[in-house]
């Protein structure tokens, strides 16, 4: 049946936020094409979220119920989807570019021998389908086209904002039991290890104080720690810093590190390479502290202080202490 199909991801019954973006995007496509919006959920635990998808304009939710899909199993999810795609024949299948969305769609694409366009930000339905996708973590865009009866896409996170449908639909839930072989289930989550508790997590911090090569060494980060503490924030860093072993990789901001979206990012001794900037461009405000007025970070900041961070940070800390 003519339709747009969206993978609604969940973790043991909790709907993934990024899937709401994929559903919003899928709904927009389905309206342009004049076809219904369907969703697929893998695992019985997902039943809890199935009906609620009507609020996003989904008319039919296909629930892949299977004893072995209680917890995440990438190939199991993908096989369920492949079976459904074979039966439903949607024109477009969309998932979010999350870890699971990317993984499941790649498995489905490999099984079906189809291309997969990853991290799209714009899609024009048609034959061929035209799309814009991100490269370099979002620092560069690529326009592409893809042909074939079914087009598989993942959405770049935050390319669209999740929005409920103006007129919610009554979502019909249609359970089905996918045929899964032992091979389809050999990769699955077998256990979990709790995250280390403690300090403010980088992705959630309202203030991030970032340090780069200019900090000069692991000891230099004491001043950044103190500034972060005074502002109730967390410390981040550039890749030069993690590669040198001054800070753990969990502190790294950027394309291959963490993406942050604080109220303010204070970048100290960081040049502002594109791979760093894609990780912090969602900050509401950027304050750069750098000796070089022409550093790319200064050009892309809201505020900048020109000078040696080793002199500026102590002065800044003293000023803040005076206030409190």
């Amino acid at each position, binding site marked *: 049946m003519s339709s747009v199909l969206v993978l609604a991801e969940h973790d043991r019954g909790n709907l993934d936020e990024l899937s709401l973006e994929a559903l919003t995007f899928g709904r927009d496509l389905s309206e342009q094409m004049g076809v219904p919006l369907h969703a697929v959920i893998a695992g019985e635990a997902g039943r809890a979220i199935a009906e609620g998808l009507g609020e996003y304009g989904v008319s039919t939710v296909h629930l892949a119920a299977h004893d072995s899909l209680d917890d995440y199993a990438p190939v199991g999810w993908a096989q369920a989807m492949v079976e459904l795609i074979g039966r439903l024949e949607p024109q477009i299948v969309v998932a979010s570019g999350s870890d699971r969305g990317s993984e499941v769609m790649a498995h489905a694409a490999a099984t079906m021998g189809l*291309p997969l366009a990853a991290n799209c930000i714009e899609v024009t339905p048609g034959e061929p389908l035209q799309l814009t996708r991100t490269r370099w973590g979002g620092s560069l*865009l690529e326009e592409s086209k893809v042909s074939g009866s079914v087009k598989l896409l993942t959405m770049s996170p935050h390319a669209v904002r999740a929005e409920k449908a103006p007129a919610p639909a009554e979502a019909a839930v249609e359970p089905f039991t996918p045929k899964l072989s032992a091979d389809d289930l050999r990769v699955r989550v077998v256990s979990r290890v709790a995250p280390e508790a403690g300090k403010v997590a980088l992705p959630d911090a309202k203030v991030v104080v970032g340090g780069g090569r200019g900090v000069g060494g692991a000891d230099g980060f004491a001043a950044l720690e103190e500034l972060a503490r005074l502002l109730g924030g967390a410390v981040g860093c550039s890749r030069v810093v993690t590669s040198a072993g001054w800070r753990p990789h969990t502190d790294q901001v950027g394309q291959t590190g963490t993406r942050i979206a604080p109220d303010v990012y204070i970048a100290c001794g960081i040049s502002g390479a594109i791979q760093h900037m894609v990780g912090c461009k969602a900050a509401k405000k950027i304050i750069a502290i750098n000796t070089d007025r022409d550093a790319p970070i200064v050009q892309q900041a809201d505020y900048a202080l020109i000078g040696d961070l080793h*002199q500026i940070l102590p002065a800044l800390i003293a000023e803040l202490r005076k206030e409190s």
Partner: protein
Amino acid sequence: MNILICVKRVPATGGRITLTPDEQDIDTRFLGFTVSPHEECAVEEAVRLIEAHGGTSKVLTLGPPEAEEQLRDALAVGIERAILLDSGGHEWDPGATAAAIVEAVRASAEPFDLLLFGNESADSGNYQVGIRVAHALGLPVVTGVKHLELDDGEAVARREAAGGWEVYRVPLPSVVTVREGINLPRYPSVPGRLKAKKKELERREPKFEGNTLEMIRLKLPPGSDKQVDILGTGPDAAPKVVEVLKRIGVA
């Protein structure tokens, strides 16, 4: 233990990207080249696994002849052998790339126990070549791995998720795609570099069968029209920063 690591040569872009006039490529005239940090970590992980368990390792790339440089970088930190698949001047899409890698794996004299990939390539970020290779070879694959151990013929792999670490356990041979942070790569030593320079590379010329995902052109994302407000020079400007922080509402 026999490990294959796949790496992709990419330009080391700095503060900004400049495109070629035909918008088909990044202008690399003034740039050096590297591989994704994820792939650097895959190389390091292979070296450590071989140190711990014995065996041999091989690094593979599909790229231009110049990608020899990236292969030698891997040899310099302890990978034993290298193979260059000449891309013949084409841009290979993820399906075509995976097919070329699979063909090279099948042609290899000894089978691999572990195939390591980056979770995603630095430039095109398709998040799929490793998975496609696994499918074609009928192997299990764990992606986004940040902690890897070998235990009794199985790979025990962890990946980060919102609620903590997910643990996967798959039999070898298998494919694992890794993320930066799994280890801290070593720097090559001078003797390592010298040894790497002299090594013989294996070369193949896979046949390019065409792409199914067709690139039309590249373009830069719209720039921000931000005007930076220079608050001052040196420590004397500290009070102004506090003012700004107050205005933002964080101090």
